[in-house]
C-alpha cells in the first residue's frame, strides 16, 4: 500500500496538542494506524509538547500534594500494572483498531443506512464539535456534488475515489476546506468505503439532497 495523500502538519500538531474535535481525532488516529510517515511526524509533535512541559514555569502545588499521591500508590487499586496480555493491534479485518473501537467490531458490525442512489452511511458516536461517519459508495457511483462550510477529512478504507483534484486510494486522506467544491466518484471494480469527518454540515448544490440533509445529518 502506497499512501500518497497524508495529513498536514497543522492537523498532526493539533492532534498531538489534543486540540482536535473527537471526530477529527478518529480520522487522524485511523490514518496513523495505516501510515508510518504520519505516525513518526505525530510523535515528533508529541516531543514538542514534552519540550513545552519541560520549559513550563512551575506552578505551586498544594501542601501535601506529593504525600497524597504517594499514599495513593500504596492502595490496592493502583499496584504497578502488568502489560496487557492482548495489545490493541489489528485483527484480520478491514478496519484499523481505533475505528473498530467506535464501530464495535469490523465491517459486518456497521449499521448502514441508505441515503439514496446506492450510497449508504453510518454515523459514529462522537462529541458534537464535529461529526464522523462511514460512507459506502458503490463502484462507479458518485457522491452528490457538495461544497463545505468547514473542514472535511475523508480517509479511504477500501477501493478508491477520484474527484477534480486527484485520485485517493486506501490509506489516502483528502483534506477539503470551504474553497473546495467537488464530486467524488468511486472507481469501478470495487465498492469504496471511506471514513469522513466534518465540523460543519456539507452544502449540497442540488435541491433534493439539500431537502433531505437534516434527516440524514450530513
Amino acid at each position, binding site marked *: 500500500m502506497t499512501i500518497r495523500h497524508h495529513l498536514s502538519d497543522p492537523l498532526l*500538531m493539533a492532534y498531538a496538542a489534543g486540540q482536535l474535535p473527537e471526530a477529527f*481525532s478518529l480520522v487522524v488516529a485511523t490514518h496513523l494506524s495505516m501510515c508510518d510517515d504520519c505516525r513518526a511526524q505525530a*510523535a515528533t509533535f508529541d516531543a514538542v509538547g514534552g519540550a*513545552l512541559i519541560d520549559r513550563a514555569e512551575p506552578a505551586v502545588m498544594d501542601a501535601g*500534594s506529593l504525600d497524597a499521591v504517594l499514599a*495513593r500508590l500504596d492502595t490496592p487499586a493502583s499496584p504497578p500494572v502488568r*502489560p496487557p496480555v492482548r495489545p490493541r493491534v489489528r485483527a484480520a479485518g478491514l478496519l484499523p483498531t481505533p475505528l473498530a473501537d467506535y464501530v464495535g467490531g469490523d465491517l459486518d458490525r456497521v449499521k448502514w443506512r441508505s441515503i439514496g442512489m446506492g450510497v449508504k452511511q453510518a454515523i459514529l458516536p462522537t462529541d458534537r464539535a464535529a461529526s464522523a461517519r462511514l460512507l459506502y459508495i458503490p463502484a462507479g457511483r458518485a457522491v452528490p456534488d457538495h461544497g463545505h462550510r468547514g473542514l472535511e477529512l475523508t480517509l479511504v478504507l477500501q477501493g478508491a475515489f477520484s474527484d477534480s483534484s486527484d485520485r485517493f486510494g486506501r490509506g489516502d486522506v483528502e483534506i477539503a476546506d470551504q474553497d473546495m467544491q467537488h464530486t467524488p466518484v468511486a472507481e469501478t471494480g470495487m465498492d469504496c468505503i471511506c471514513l469522513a469527518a466534518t465540523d460543519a454540515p456539507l452544502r449540497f448544490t442540488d435541491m433534493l439532497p439539500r431537502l433531505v440533509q437534516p434527516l440524514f445529518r450530513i
Partner: protein
Amino acid sequence: MMFDATDSTYPDADVLPQQYAVATLARLRRNKGFRLASDQMNTDWAALMIRVRDQQDKAAFAALFRHFAPRVKSFLMRSGTGAALAEECAQDVMATLWQKAHLFDESRASVATWVFTIARNRRIDAARKARRAEPEDLDWGPAPAPDQAEVMEARQDTDRLSRAMADLPEKQRALIERAYFGDLSHSEIAAETGLPLGTIKSRIRLALDRLRHAMT
C-alpha cells in the same frame, strides 16, 4: 549528573544515597528557590523513571514528582483549567506515571514527552468527557532491551529540541505555545514551526521501518 549506562558511576540499586541526593537537591531547589541554570538539561529523568519502572522506587518517583507535577499543573492552567482541577489532574498524571511505568521505553520517548501525552489525555477527559482516538499499537513483540545507540540519539533529540525551543524568536515560540494551550484553531496553526523536527522524525521513521521489517 549525566548518568550513562556504560559509565562506572551509573548508580545501581545499591547506591541509595545517590537517589536521595537527587530528591534532596530537588527539595532544596523548591524551598529555597535554589536552581542551577543547567539542572534541567542535566538531570537524568529517564534514569529515575527506570528506577520507578524496575524497582518501584519511591524516592525516584518523588524526584520526578517535584520536577514534573508543578509543570503539568502550570501547563494545564495555561490551557484554561482552573487551579483546583489542574492540581487534581497533575496528581492523577503523576499517579498514572507510576501505574504505567512498565510502558516507559526511553528509546521511544523522553520522560517529558511521555508526561506530556498523559497530561494531554487527562485534560481531554476532564474537559470534554470525550475520548481521544489513539492509533493502534504496533506489535512490538517481546520487548528487546533498548538499543543504547538509539537511547543516546533519543536523548540528543530531546536536548536539541529543548535548545531550539529556547532559541526561537519570541513571536514564533508564543505561536507554538498557543497551539498547544488551545488558543489557536487548527486552521490557524502555522505548519512551519522552525524547530528541527526532521531529525527526530527520521529517527522514529527508521525505528518503525525496522519494526515493520521484523514483523514480515
